[in-house]
């Protein structure tokens, strides 16, 4: 392969900043053809086909209807449509946790063949995308819910979800609903008995109000599942604020629609997340901001750690900046990534001269019309094929650059890496994170950001 071809390849690989995926995972990601909204009932995880879900809602004021089975909570005014509200816990004879006064019930509004119907659950969790071939037939031990109400069982992220067949449970089935205990209650009848808006005559009437369907936080929880399954982006306290804010601007740009389905849409959604100078050399503004944050006049060994280095642009930017800032120090940059192709090309990174800012002139040489870093700079950076989540020791570092990496780790790995950073760094160590990653939310680091650079130091 010529240098030129190599460069083309390096430039082409623009997606997947920090790919953690093993090949099996990639296969599964391609086949996601079933999405379910997950929720919990009596401490167990359940799912329902997303095609049956009209919306996620919080029911805080509904009208009780006298003389109905106990699982019929009442009727609800959904923007003018009166729908009946079924409490799934009571229906399945599961314990109903006490709600604090004023706290709304969580639930789903389902669109079934027979029309809209609301169901109350303990907690609505997220939207999970799975390949439908993973769905297995139900086994009696899985649930306290009658077998015939279950359309399948699936494991996802080491949790077992029971997928409920809502059409069979709540729909207008001809046969009586098989109830676990007695079959005495017939929810289909409950659906049919949905009182007309004239329910105002009921003695237990409460004020009707619009459901709270527009909580940004709740919606963020829902896109979180899609983001995770289609891009590996994991929403936690680290980036929740960004997701909520992005969702608002996304809705404004998409006529109020917040649904994100395809991988392309997920990439589009995440585009503004990535930090400045992703997959390119840092520009002057970024270099100068980091320089201003670095402790002045370091000598001896100056070490930097750069997990998620990708093709190496960031690592070389760090190496050149440190060389330029500390002329008498021995600089070493430990760079690591899990993308084998990216990181193995990084030691021989070739650049297009037109893309190299003047700052780097002393650190590069021109070869065959392309530009590469001098041997001295290349010796400074040690590229490793390595996974940041594996238990490893971090060398004592003066600078840690971990941009847009933590957000693509599982939550427990995020916490582990952050505590590793906290344990193994000195008070003076500068930690540069992604532009939209709030390390302070996850550790006792305090923000010392400057200009385009989001950075932290130990508090």
């Amino acid at each position: 392969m010529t240098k030129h071809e190599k460069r083309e390849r390096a430039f082409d690989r623009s997606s997947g900043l920090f790919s953690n995926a093993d090949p099996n995972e990639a296969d599964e990601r391609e086949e996601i053809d079933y999405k379910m909204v997950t929720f919990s009932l009596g401490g167990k995880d359940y799912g329902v086909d997303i095609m049956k879900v009209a919306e996620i809602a919080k029911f805080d004021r509904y009208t009780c209807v006298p003389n109905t089975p106990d699982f019929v909570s009442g009727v609800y005014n959904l923007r003018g449509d009166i729908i009946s509200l079924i409490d799934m816990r009571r229906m399945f004879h599961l314990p109903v946790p006490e709600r604090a006064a004023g706290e709304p019930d969580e639930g789903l509004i389902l669109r079934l063949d027979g029309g809209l119907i609301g169901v109350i659950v303990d907690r609505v969790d997220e939207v999970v995308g799975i390949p439908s071939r993973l769905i297995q037939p139900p086994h009696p031990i899985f649930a306290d819910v009658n077998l015939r109400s279950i359309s399948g069982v699936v494991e996802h992220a080491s949790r077992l979800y029971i997928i409920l067949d809502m059409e069979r449970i709540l729909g207008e089935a001809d046969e009586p609903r098989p109830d676990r205990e007695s079959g005495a209650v017939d929810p289909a009848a409950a659906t049919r008995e949905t009182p007309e808006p004239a329910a105002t005559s009921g003695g237990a009437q409460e004020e009707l109000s619009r459901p709270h369907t527009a909580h940004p936080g709740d919606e963020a929880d829902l896109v979180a599942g899609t983001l995770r399954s289609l891009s590996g982006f994991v929403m936690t306290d680290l980036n929740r604020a960004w997701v909520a804010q992005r969702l608002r601007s996304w809705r404004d740009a998409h006529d109020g629609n917040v649904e994100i389905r395809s991988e392309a849409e997920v990439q589009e959604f995440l585009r503004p997340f990535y930090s400045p100078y992703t997959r390119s050399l840092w520009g002057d503004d970024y270099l100068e901001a980091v320089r201003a944050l670095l402790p002045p006049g370091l000598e001896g060994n100056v070490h930097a750690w750069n997990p998620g280095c990708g093709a190496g642009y960031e690592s070389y930017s760090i190496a050149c900046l440190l060389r330029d800032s500390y002329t008498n120090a021995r600089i070493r940059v430990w760079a690591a990534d899990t993308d084998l192709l990216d990181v193995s090309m990084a030691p021989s990174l070739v650049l297009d001269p037109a893309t190299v800012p003047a700052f780097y002139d002393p650190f590069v040489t021109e070869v065959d019309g392309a530009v590469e870093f001098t041997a001295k700079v290349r010796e400074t950076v040690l590229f490793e094929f390595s996974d940041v989540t594996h238990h490893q020791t971090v060398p004592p570092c003066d600078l840690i650059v971990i941009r847009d990496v933590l957000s693509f780790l599982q939550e427990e790995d995020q916490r582990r890496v952050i505590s590793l950073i906290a344990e193994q760094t000195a008070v003076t160590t500068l930690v540069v994170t992604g532009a939209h990653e709030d390390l302070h939310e996850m550790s006792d680091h305090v923000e010392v950001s400057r200009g385009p650079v989001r950075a932290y130091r130990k508090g």
Partner: protein
Amino acid sequence: MRVEYINPFVEAAHDVLKEVLHTDVKRGELYLKSTATPVLGVAAIIGLAGDVEGRVLLDMDRTTAVQVASGMLAGMEMEPITDLNEMGRATITELANMITGRAVTKLHNLGFAFDLTPPALVTGDNMEISNANVEALIVPMELPQGRIEINVAIRERG
């Protein structure tokens, strides 16, 4: 593990296996392991020291070991073996020596200085190998005789 170290091991394993067994060798997808790695049953270990420290493990199950050893012996016009006898163990040990030796020679040519320890052969069931604070790179090789994993854990001397 430093990216510069990866290719020499992959190439050496591929080339040596192909030469001694006169057969097609398919390289599987490389991956990293941090925790204890199960050992398939027959493992030849070679230690590395010098600029770096670590070890290379050549790992396969017993059936594969017998077949690979038989294949190598047949190549030298010697009697094939039916169980992992002394000749079989010596042959597998030698295979590990050849692969590691070739990889280290390639690394020497790139300017990295390594020393090797003599190989040791470990056999048994349900074994695991773990290295504190070092990730292992696994290079799986698919042969008609079975699967051989080359498990490399090296780190820079801190």
